């Protein structure tokens, strides 16, 4: 297990390292002069001051030196300051990150609570009308753009029915965005669970369990569910990353004050330090969650736990 996990952690570290490189290069890929864009609104800035900013950002140095400077600041927890308003990027992100995490986790919870039982039921009734019906529902769910689903939910539950508030970041405000994000992923979970469970149900060891005279409920619960759940667990890391990605859109629909909304604003404002910080934060979160899920998987699967 330690070998498995250390590999995953090394992989994660590599990913984050690659992100830092990418993020440093990002500002160079920008068409035009980023410093000009940053200070476009300042009438008082002299060319000397622009040069000063360029120097302080290291943009006059070679890229490796810039990277070293970036990393040095990063290791001190300094992600630079926003162009709009000149505030520490880290503060801006940390203030909003919890909101995004809460949203993604709630959506994950919804996806699991809805998706896995449906997938299990469909697998249990494989080939039946119930199975067909549920899977049609699932494929429809996957095909539904979540920004559209979000708008429809907003329209019906907030505007037409007025059941739920539409602004702010309270627990009731969480319901719609989490539902939007959760439902489409529930469909993915349902399909995944179904195929995984069906795979397992056709395995010899399930036949063995039946041959021992175990009742169906016990076979399903102890043998099928446990073994069939593992592939679903491995997918959770990836799904969480999807959730984080989906949150970008959903936050914008529901005015949820998370890093996704911040990122889109920053893109419009060409606020490069914020974009850099966002990309870095996003990949750190995704990597950490993926490692967490891998650890969970390692604990659940004896083949890895005992390796």
């Amino acid at each position, binding site marked *: 297990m330690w070998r498995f996990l250390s590999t995953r952690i090394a992989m994660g570290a590599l990913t984050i390292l690659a992100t830092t490189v990418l993020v440093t290069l990002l500002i160079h*890929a920008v068409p035009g002069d980023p410093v000009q864009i940053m200070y476009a609104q300042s009438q008082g800035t002299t060319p000397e001051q622009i040069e000063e900013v360029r120097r302080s950002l290291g943009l006059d140095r070679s890229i490796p030196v810039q990277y070293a400077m970036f990393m040095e600041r990063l290791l001190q927890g300094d992600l630079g300051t926003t162009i709009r308003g000149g505030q520490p990027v880290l503060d801006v992100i940390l203030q909003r990150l919890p909101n995004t995490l809460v949203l993604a986790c709630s959506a994950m919870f919804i996806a699991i609570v809805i998706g896995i039982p449906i997938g299990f039921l469909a697998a249990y009734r494989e080939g039946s009308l119930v199975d067909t019906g549920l899977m049609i529902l699932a494929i429809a769910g996957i*095909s*539904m*753009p979540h920004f559209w689903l979000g708008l429809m939910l907003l329209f019906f539950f907030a505007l037409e029915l007025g059941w739920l508030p539409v602004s702010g970041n309270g627990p009731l405000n969480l319901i719609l965005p989490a539902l939007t994000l959760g439902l489409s992923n529930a469909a993915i979970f349902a399909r995944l669970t179904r195929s995984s469970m069906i795979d397992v149900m056709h395995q010899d060891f399930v036949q063995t369990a039946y041959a021992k005279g175990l009742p169906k409920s016990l076979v399903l619960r102890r043998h099928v569910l446990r073994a069939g759940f593992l592939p679903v667990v491995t997918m959770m890391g990836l799904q969480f990353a999807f959730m984080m990605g989906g949150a*970008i*859109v959903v936050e914008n629909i529901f005015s949820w004050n998370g890093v996704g909304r911040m990122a*889109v604003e920053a*893109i419009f404002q060409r606020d490069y330090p914020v974009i850099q910080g966002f*990309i870095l934060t996003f990949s750190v979160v995704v990597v950490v969650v993926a490692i967490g899920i891998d650890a969970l998987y390692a604990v659940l699967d004896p083949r890895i736990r005992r390796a």
Partner: protein
Amino acid sequence: MTSLTDIPNGSAPPGFWRRMVRSSNGVVGLIIVLGLIFCAAFADLLAPYNPARMGTGGRFLPPGGKFLLGTDEFGRDMLSRILYGSRLTLLIGAVAVGISLTAGMLVGMVAAFRRGWVETLLMRSTDVLFSFTETLIALSFVAVLGPSLQNAVIAVGVAAVPFYARTCYSAALVETSKPYFEASIAAGAAPGRLVFLHLLPNVLPTMIVVATLGVSTAILAAAGLSFLGLGAQPPTSEWGYMLAGSRDYINRAPWLMTIPGLAIAITVLGFNLLGDGLRTSLDPVERR
């Protein structure tokens, strides 16, 4: 000695099309996709009005009558816009998947075929990029290049490359380890022959399935970017952009939101069903 059971299995396994037709999903998907292609190809003839012309009808006319799907905030005919939008949607899907498929297959096949450090380098970088997730790659791309439909499509295409590369790699790995491939090596086949006569034809079916399903992902992703204002720019009748613009009129003209959303959903559903059908037909073992 009498031949005991060494008889050809009387009937060949049901052919691809027969299986395709049997999978009702695939048929429905195919019909939707063909319908979409038809709409896109003949948008000029089908569309009753110029999609960009403002004031074709009154503003916010509800569906029905002269304007089957109503008109938008500028009095443009929604039906015409949706029809022309199908062109864009197909183009987006095709170009994005084209990018992902070409680059992904190149990386995947080279890695599986060359092995050694080339394989390690390619697949490890793919893994790193893969854990970035497609959304982040696409978003970063747009952040750098600036919002436009073209950039969004490139972004979506590039973002999916790691996925295609991985899929192609594992499919190619399976094929290269099969005896027929080794027999070909043993027969002295040169790399070109191995790749183009054996590897490519055998990997292609898998990749066609992946690409078909990928079209739906790409369309969704590009529409998502347009929805955020990071993709299509006016006056294109890109569905995601139309949907984004409709937000202001939820109360006044809900159909402006419903129609493009439905169009996206049905298109994506079509490609998903077709992909599912293709998968079932191409791979009789995995009938799930």
